């Protein structure tokens, strides 16, 4: 098995390490400044090839097909199921005439298990030949590979020859106007590395508004308990828990959250938790690294003035 890692401006997508691990340390990096991304991930691999190219799906499929035949590889291909991986894998599968298994949770030559029905069930497949698969992010985990990593640059055939007729016209139909940096206030909570959570302890709308602003000032995203969504102060995508979003931030700071199991079960395993609550003994305080008994509304007001957050 060999991994294909799409690269944007020297950055490999989330889940690249896991895909490389699944492919036993062998990977083709393709995209802009692919070599930079490859060097970043040498801890996880043994043999990397890089192709400097634009991330245009049709062209990438041709390049990957060409690279693999040059390398004499006919084995299966795995990509991370990141947005770019999701978009490229079907093109590669189509180009190579192979079956595509999208959103797999385990991948081997004998068996591919794919999650279906929105993650409620697993379908097992027995591939009849080499295939293309995307590996869901975070399902595998990754281990360092102590072995030396060899990196070799391959040339893009798109750049060197005119094999592709359609790719150029295709790319004119869709033009990239650039990549926007992460924006904590609109970021998908599930991806947010830092979250400020608000619960019923926030007494009123203005206090709750402060939560969002302080969050932005701390480069964090805002999450809430169901009590808050029930109050209509935040939309459902902001609700953390069993009936909301499952998150996995590094940092979670809660304000007036009691820590009901329906909430904490969606919290993942934050590296650091701070809680502000008037009740020292509620579950949220029990699971915090720093539990501060204080009025959450006042503390937010104080933090806002320290961080010079504008109040509208």
């Amino acid at each position, binding site marked *: 098995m060999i991994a294909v890692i799409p690269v944007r401006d020297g950055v490999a997508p989330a*889940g690249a390490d896991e895909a490389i691990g699944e492919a036993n340390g062998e990977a083709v990096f393709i995209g802009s400044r692919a070599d930079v991304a490859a060097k970043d991930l040498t801890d996880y691999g043994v043999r990397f090839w890089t192709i400097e190219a634009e991330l245009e799906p049709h062209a990438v499929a041709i390049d990957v097909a060409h690279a693999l035949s040059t390398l004499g590889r006919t084995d299966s291909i795995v990509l991370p199921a990141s947005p770019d991986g999701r978009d490229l894998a079907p093109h590669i599968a*189509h180009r190579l005439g192979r079956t595509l298994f999208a959103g797999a949770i385990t991948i081997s030559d004998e068996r591919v298990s794919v*999650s279906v029905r929105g993650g409620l*069930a697993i379908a*097992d497949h027995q591939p009849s030949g080499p295939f293309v698969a995307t590996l869901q992010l975070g399902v595998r985990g990754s281990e360092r590979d102590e072995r030396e990593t060899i990196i070799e640059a391959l040339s893009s055939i798109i750049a060197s020859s005119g094999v592709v007729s359609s790719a150029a016209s295709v790319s004119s139909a869709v033009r990239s106007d650039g990549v926007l*940096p992460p924006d*904590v206030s609109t970021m998908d909570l599930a991806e947010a590395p830092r979250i400020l959570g608000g619960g019923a302890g926030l007494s009123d709308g203005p206090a709750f508004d402060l939560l969002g602003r302080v969050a932005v000032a701390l480069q964090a995203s805002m999450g809430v308990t169901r009590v808050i969504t029930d109050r209509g102060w935040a939309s459902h995508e902001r609700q953390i828990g069993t009936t909301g979003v499952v998150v996995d931030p590094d940092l979670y700071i809660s304000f007036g959250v009691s820590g009901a199991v329906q909430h904490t079960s969606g919290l993942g395993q934050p590296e650091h*938790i701070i809680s502000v609550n008037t009740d020292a003994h509620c579950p949220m305080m029990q699971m915090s690294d*720093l539990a501060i008994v204080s009025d959450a509304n006042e503390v937010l007001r104080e933090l806002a003035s*320290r961080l010079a957050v504008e109040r509208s």
Partner: protein
Amino acid sequence: MTITVCIKWVLPNRDGDERFAGISLADQAAVETGLSVAEALNDTCTVVTVGPPAAEASLRDALACGAHDVVRIDGSADTDSAETARLLAEHCVHSRFIVCGDYSADRGSGSVPALIAARLERGQALGLIDVRIVGESLSVVRRLDGGRREKLSIVGPAVISVEGSVARLRRASLRATLAAGEAHINVITNDGSGALRRNPETVPPRPYRPRARVVPSPSGSSALDRVRQITDTSSSKGHGETVVLSPEDAASRILESLRAWGYLADSAT
């Protein structure tokens, strides 16, 4: 050139109860996007599905909402992605924009739109979270990982797929709903045989269970340290500190901790 919207009619579970079946939020958003783009560009909007007769209920809903035409390509809901894409692609050859949902509710591979683009050698912009019509083209934002987004301009012909939050499907008028109930639905049957390639599934799906995750090997110098590292939970959680503080002190303490943990390195204060 028309706008074609692809929707997938999905049963809620395997021994499906058709009363609860329908299209996903993303597909609803696709229908709305298709309709608004068609209106803005003064074009027609066709809604297509590969599915069984019961899927016609969703097509009728689309008609009631204003689709100019609907087509059902006869096939099981289990038809595999590549085959689905082939059937849809044949139907969309002349479309300027092919609008899909980003994931279907059952299989949810998110691969059909890209497979259509691959077949038709069209441009693609998938997983859109914002679609705006600017003159004759679309200005869209697509989700990348790590919270980044990509802005794109699309003149077409292209395949796009949208997330459910992009648009809310309009409510059909009563008259249109009544009319759609009686409308004729075009059905395309395949190759006479009707036998489409199914998902290459060998056994029925089983309940989801996460796979065992690989854990980095411990790096302590003695065996005891290494064992501790993987078994000891006491080091991190459950031994937090509880303090009673005034709001001012609480704020100071929070910022202090954040700085100590390295979260404030890159911001002021």
